[in-house]
Each structure stands twice: as C-alpha cells, then as structure tokens.
C-alpha cells in the first residue's frame, strides 16, 4: 500500500518505535557487554589487556575451540543427514508425507536441552540403557562432551536444513533439468551439475542457522559438557556463576560469541541474497518413478531419522510418569514427579505462560509493522531497519541477558529482577523471526490488491484493515504461536535474567537437574513439551513450513 507507507507519519512511527526499542534493549546492552570487555576487572579503567589475557588462557581458548568444532560438526552432519532427507521428501513417492514433514519439523519448537537431558537419562553414567548394557557385559563409552552435544544438535537442528532444502528442491524449474537431460546428461550428472548448484544456497543458508544455534545454545552443553569448556556456558559462569565472577572476562567471551554468530549470520544473509535463481518455478519437478525397493529405502530412512529425533522427547515423557527413588528409577507408573514439582508451586508454570505470551505479543506488535514496511516500501531507511531487526539473531541469549542486566541494574531505569526485563529480552530475541515471517507472508500478497482497493475509493488505512489484515491474520497468528512456544522453552537469556518470583518452567527444570531430583526435571520437561506441542498442533494449519525454518 504505497500511500500508507508513503504517509510520513506512518513510516516514521514504525521506524521510530523500532529504533527506540532496538537501541534501548539491544544496541545499548550489547555495547555494555563490549564496554565490560575493555575495562579492567574492577570496572574503573579502560584497558585492552583483557583480550590477550583471556585468549592466552588455555581454558578459555579451549572453550572457543570446542564451541567452533562442535558447531562445525553440527553444520556438516545436519547437511549429511538433511539433504538426502529433503531430496526423498521432495522427489520420491512416499506415503504419509505431510505427517512426516510435520513430525520432522517438530524438533525446531521442542526445547533442545530436553533432548540432551533424555540422552543423559538413557545413556548417561547411570542411564537406563547404560545400566542394561553394563549388566549384559557390553562396554559402553561416555556420551558426555563433544559426541553427545553434537548428536543432540544434529537430532534437534536438522530440520533447519531439511525445510528450506525441500522447498528448494521443489522450486527447481523442471525444464532446466529436462534441458540438461536433453543435452545428454545422465540423471545423476543432471543432479550434480544442475539441481544441486541451484539448491546449494538453500542448504548452506539452513546449515548456517544450525551453526549459529549450535554456537549460542546454552542448555545442551550445560547438560552434556561436564568438564569440557564451552563458550556460551563459560560466559554465563564468569558473569553469574557462584565462584570466580569476572565481568571483564565474561565481556570478552561474550564478544567472541557475538563475533562467531555475527560472521555466520553475515555469510548466511549474503548467500540468501544471491539465491535469486531458485525462486520462480514455472512447473515443479515431478516425483521420480522409482521402484518399490528404493521407495522403501527412502521411506525407511526418513522415518528412522524423524523417529530418532523424537524418541528422546517421548522417553522423557514416559520417564516422567515413572517412580523415582532419589536418582534411582523404578518401572512403576506414578504421578509423584508432577506432584512434587507442582506441589511446591504453580508459579513457574504460570510465569512461563504469562511471560511467553507477553513476549510473543510484544515481538509481533513491533515486528509485523516492520515486516510490512520492508515488503511494501524499499528505501535506504527500510534497508537499515532490515539489518537492525535481524541483528538480534546474531547475539547469543546469554550475551543479551548479561547486557540487559548491566544496563538496567542501576541508573534511571532499573529493570533487573523484574518480569519486564524478561519479556523485553524475549521480544528482542523473537523480533527477527517476527519480522521475517510477516514479511514472508506479505510477500505472497500482491501489492496490486491494496492498490485495487484504494482505486475503488477506500482510504489506505481502511484498505489495510479490510484487505491486508484478513489475508495475513492466519499467518500472523501462526507466527505468534511459534514465538510463544519457542519463548516458553527459552533458556539462555532466562537463566541470566530470572529472579526468584519469576522462576520459569525451564529454570525449574534446571534447578531440579542440578539437584538430584531427576524425576522433577523429567516432569518439568514433560510440561514444557505439552505446552509446546499442543499449541503448535492447534495452529498447524495456519503455519507454512518455511516459517518454521526461519525460527
């Protein structure tokens, strides 16, 4: 709607809101972390000594190296697993595809640290499977450290590769493949020389999201790393741990985190920006005429991968209904775990629902108008807005949390310890998703529809309400729900920002983990799973798959 976005007041209001919100709650906090990194431990005098000091420390250097190695491994293995998966879904005849795709996307909204915890419950030192294996005399190594973390990342993040790659395989114009074969290329050669190059940007873009998530994730290494230093965890410990608090070193590690994720995000945006040739399919390629053997193989592969990713969650749910005696598990149905967890207080559950709802609504209220502006009005200002609204994705939740605490624990506005600061952190973290998904929805709505309405005599703002809103409302609601469920299982900024009365379900689970009440942790995880799967299942029809891939 040119007239509305052209109206100076409308554009200015959106830009101003976004600018104020992002400066106050994103830019300034990140700069505060940076500031902490260039002041001495006492926080009084400027120094550049922190960086060489931290980087010459073997332990911190290991943390950086471990994080990068793990993220790189996740990057590679999600591609190895995800691309064949996507190809099978896009090109093979296979029963139950919609269900398969829905289940395959599910790990994106489920809390990944629950999967990590399930791994511990089953294969950990005192894990169910470990004990059985030992009892049978079969040796079994440790899943702690790099292997367990990589496995968890691959199982929970592979949909980031699958979803965009399926879309890309489907959007290859069939005629370019036909022309390759017409020119004498075999099907295999066609795939390698034509199809793969066309879908490669989508694969890489998805895998870079995996890389970013793997770098910034806090919960999974917290559960599985044990003694292995991991960047996101060490940053948190240096800032808010029980011992050896060192804001300067935390600042340096935080900046390293931001540097890693920012570089990955820049590369990702660059790749996406050049994906101009994969978007307009005249005719989608047909399913390959494969024999029953190959079909069975493809089907089996997809279902096994999907199941492997979901088994940990199912296991946690089952375990949560079993009887625990301290850390020891009995195979007996019981609701004790839930009784203990909720008996103490319903607050964490109520907090999670309330804070996640508030965060999701705030992100949507700020994000949708920005998305609208980006699609309908291209200018230098909106290009800047685009960058600013995407930037929070490049900043780990831990770093944002630390920055918010540093900024708002003193001075004119004190927010530390309140629920407001948590809602703000959630809104900032979900803003990129909200902007992207609403822009994606609006992209599909022909701008001519709005012009046709205005041309028929309906003023711009009324046109927005009568034409635009009805067409986008389903997608917006879907996006809102996705924001809600992912905030509900958010941990990396929550763990920094929560205070006693505002304990969330994720925090309750972590407290139970750190103690010895494995049963309560499992119960908390089950509750989180229920409050994730249920809303998503309810609005699944409103969601389009690529929205999941831009979480």
């Amino acid at each position, binding site marked *: 709607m*040119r*007239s509305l976005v052209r109206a100076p007041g409308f554009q200015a209001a959106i830009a101003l809101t976004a600018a104020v919100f992002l400066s106050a709650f994103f830019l300034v906090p990140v700069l505060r972390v940076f500031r902490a990194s260039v002041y001495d431990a006492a926080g009084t005098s400027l120094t550049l000594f922190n960086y060489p000091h931290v980087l010459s420390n073997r332990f911190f250097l290991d943390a950086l190296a471990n994080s990068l190695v793990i993220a790189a491994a996740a990057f590679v293995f999600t591609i190895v697993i995800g691309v064949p998966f996507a190809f099978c879904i896009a090109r093979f005849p296979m029963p139950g595809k919609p269900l398969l795709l829905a289940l395959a996307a599910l790990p994106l909204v489920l809390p990944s640290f629950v999967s990590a915890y399930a791994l511990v419950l089953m294969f950990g030192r005192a894990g169910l499977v470990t004990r059985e294996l030992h009892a049978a005399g079969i040796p079994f190594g440790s899943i702690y450290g790099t292997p367990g973390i990589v496995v968890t990342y691959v199982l929970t993040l592979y949909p980031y590769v699958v979803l965009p790659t399926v879309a890309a395989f489907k959007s290859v114009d069939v005629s370019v493949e036909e022309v390759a074969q017409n020119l004498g290329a075999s099907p295999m050669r066609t795939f390698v020389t034509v199809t793969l190059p066309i879908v490669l940007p989508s694969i890489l873009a998805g895998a870079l999201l995996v890389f970013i998530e793997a770098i910034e994730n806090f919960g999974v290494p917290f559960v599985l790393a044990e003694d292995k230093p991991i960047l996101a965890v060490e940053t948190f410990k240096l800032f808010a741990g029980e011992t050896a608090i060192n804001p300067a070193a935390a600042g340096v590690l935080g900046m390293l985190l931001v540097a890693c994720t920012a570089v990955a995000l820049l590369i990702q945006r660059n790749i996406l920006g050049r994906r101009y040739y994969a978007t307009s399919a005249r005719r989608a390629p047909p399913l390959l005429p494969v024999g029953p053997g190959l079909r069975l193989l493809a089907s089996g592969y997809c279902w096994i991968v999907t199941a492997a990713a979901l088994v940990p969650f199912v296991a946690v749910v089952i375990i949560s209904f079993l009887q625990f005696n301290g850390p020891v598990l009995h195979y007996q149905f019981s609701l004790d775990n839930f009784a203990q967890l909720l008996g103490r207080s319903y607050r964490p559950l109520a907090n999670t629902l309330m804070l996640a709802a508030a965060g999701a609504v705030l992100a949507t209220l700020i994000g949708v108008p920005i998305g609208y502006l980006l699609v309908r009005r291209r200018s230098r200002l909106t290009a800047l807005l685009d960058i600013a609204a995407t930037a929070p994705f490049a900043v780990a939740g831990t770093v944002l949390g630390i920055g918010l605490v540093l900024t708002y624990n003193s001075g004119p506005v004190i927010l530390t310890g309140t629920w407001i600061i948590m809602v703000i952190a959630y809104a900032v973290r979900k803003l990129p998703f909200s902007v992207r998904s609403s822009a994606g929805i609006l992209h599909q709505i*022909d701008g*001519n*529809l709005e*012009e*046709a*309405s*205005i*041309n*028929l*005599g*309906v*003023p*711009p703002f*009324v*046109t927005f309400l009568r*034409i635009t809103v*009805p*067409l986008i409302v389903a997608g917006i609601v879907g996006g809102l729900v996705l924001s809600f469920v992912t905030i509900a299982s958010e941990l990396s900024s929550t763990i920094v920002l929560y205070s006693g009365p505002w304990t969330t379900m994720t925090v309750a689970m972590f407290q139970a983990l750190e103690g010895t009440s494995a049963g309560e942790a499992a119960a908390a995880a089950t509750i989180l799973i229920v409050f994730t799967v249920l809303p998503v299942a309810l609005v699944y029809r409103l969601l389009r798959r690529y929205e999941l891939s831009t979480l």
Partner: protein
Amino acid sequence: MTSISIENAVRTFGSVRAVDDVSIAIRDAEFFTLLGPSGCGKTTLLRMVAGFCDLESGRILFDAERIDTLPPHRRKTGMVFQNYAIFPHLRVGDNVAYGLRARNVPSAERAERIARALKLIQLQGYEDRWPHQLSGGQLQRVAIARAVVIEPSVLLLDEPLSNLDAKLRVEMRGEIRRLQKTLGITVIYVTHDQDEALSMSDRIAVMRAGRVEQLGEPAAIYGAPESPFVAKFVGATNLFEGVVTGRVGDQIDVAIAGGALRVHDARAQAGDRVEISVRPEAIRLLVAGEAAPAGWITLSGTLSGVEYLGAVTRLYVRMFEGAPPLQVAVASAPAGGGEISMAYDPARAVVWTKDR
C-alpha cells in the same frame, strides 16, 4: 463526460527518466492507448493518472479539475490490473460490491448495480462464486465489472489481456471496446501489443524511453509513422538507410547498401541521409511477363525464405548482397522460386531525413 490533460509529466527512477516531460490531451469518451515496448514508461504514466506514482513535476487534470494532488482513493478512476488483483478472500459479488460499499451505496441499489455490471460482462448469477473457482478470462471480466460498477470518470486498463490465451484475447478486445462504447467512458489502455492498439483505439500514443514518439489515429500510426522506431514497432516493415543521389519531380533516388531505390518525397535534397520504410504489403509479386502497375518501380531478387502465416504468406527476398532480405506479403507463395521480380508503389514508402 471526462477529458484528461496530462501536462509536462516527469518521473525519474534513479537515473532513468521513466516519464520524460509527457503532455497528452485525451478527449471525452475516447479510447486512448499508450503503446510501447516494456520499460517505455507507459505503465508509469497510467499509474500517475491512478495516483500510485507521484509526479516530480507537471500536472494532470480531469476536465478542469487538477487531480494529481488528490490521494488515489479520491480520484474516481477505475483501474483494471494486469494480474486482475481480485480479492481472494471475497466472493465475486463482494469483489464487485467493494467500491460501492466504500461509497455507501444503499444495499438495494448496490445489488441492482452489481447484477447489472455482471450482466454487462456476461457473468450474471456469479455473485456467490469464489475467485479460485473462476478461469483467467472470467477473473478478467470480474476485474472489469469491479472497475466500471463505481461509474468512474476514467477507466484505466493496464495490459489487461496479456495473461489470456490468444483466442480469448481477440474476443475480449471486442468486448472491452463494446463496453466502452456502451458506457461512453474515457479509457486509457496500456499495451505492448500493436494489434490490440490498432484494433481498439480511437487514438494511440506510441511511447519510447519515457517520451511520446507519435500520437495519432491508428491509420496514421501505421500508415504514416513519424519515425523509423514507430514504423518498426507497429507492424512489420522493410527499413533502408541511404543517401539521396538526385531528384526526379516529386521522387528521389536513394543509394542504399548494394543498390538503389526510388521513392516519393517532397523535402529531401541530394546528399541528404535518409531512412526509408516500405511495408511488406506495399510490394507486389510480378508473374513472368507481367508489367508493373503504372508508376510502380520494379525490383528483382532471389527468394531466400517462405513463411506461411495462414491468411498471408511472407516471402524473404535477397535483393542486394549484404543487405537484410526484403519482406514481401503475398496471398500465396510463388511456384518454383529462384529469381523473382516484384514492384512497389513509391508513394507508399515513408521517408525520414536524418539530421544534417
């Protein structure tokens, strides 16, 4: 009811002058076509009239009222978009009713006007259909009904037929023209299709690079193109470049690459550089021994290609070494081929003198 004056309209996009100082006066109840290749500025100009594109300078008037300063929703134009822009979440009836509701037309009158509009486009009874149940041609009609039902001062059509198949396109041409006559409405029609422009329009403005190259009635645009660009863009033609070598009465002799032509021209002098257009249908094939009509000039060449087009056949004749083959339109291809002789009417050639 409404005449339109576009006065010195200018619009630049980046460094491109999309509309470069265009002035056009469109008469009341005229079917006026903006014709040109893509990127010539015709759609930008149309969107200026609708209000979706600002003028950097210049102005637009409907009758005596200046409208380029009005917001688009108050301009009383009915626009038909290239992709129809039918609201997908509203039924056909509600799509057509949309503009009437915006004008608070009472519901009884509204229903009656919708029915009348749908009848006009031969979709009576389609009120309750959903857009996705309609074919491209039907959506096109709904878009037209939606635009005309509000009784706009001006109807704006932006390449409305380009998404239809060839047969339907020809049908719709006639229908749109009939509708315009019935309603007596002023129409601005944008197209890149010369056949559409020639068959439908009262007058045509041929545009090129943001400027009006020629403005006139279809017969003048085709028969007396004012520039080689217009001759080439509207219909097939044979273009020659050459230098005038002499004058014989009201005719000139022109040396062209590999040969010479004689054509009618009143102005050119010896030594002038000229361009000449000879339409394929201005050339006639001579059967063996047949004399050329009085005043016509004979040519000969070698048949190098035959293109069967149904109603006519187009021949390609190589006349001069190195020059592109001459296009000739004939009723049927000559038997045999090889050397053929032709004649053309020097009065039907068009000559432009290049800047000296």
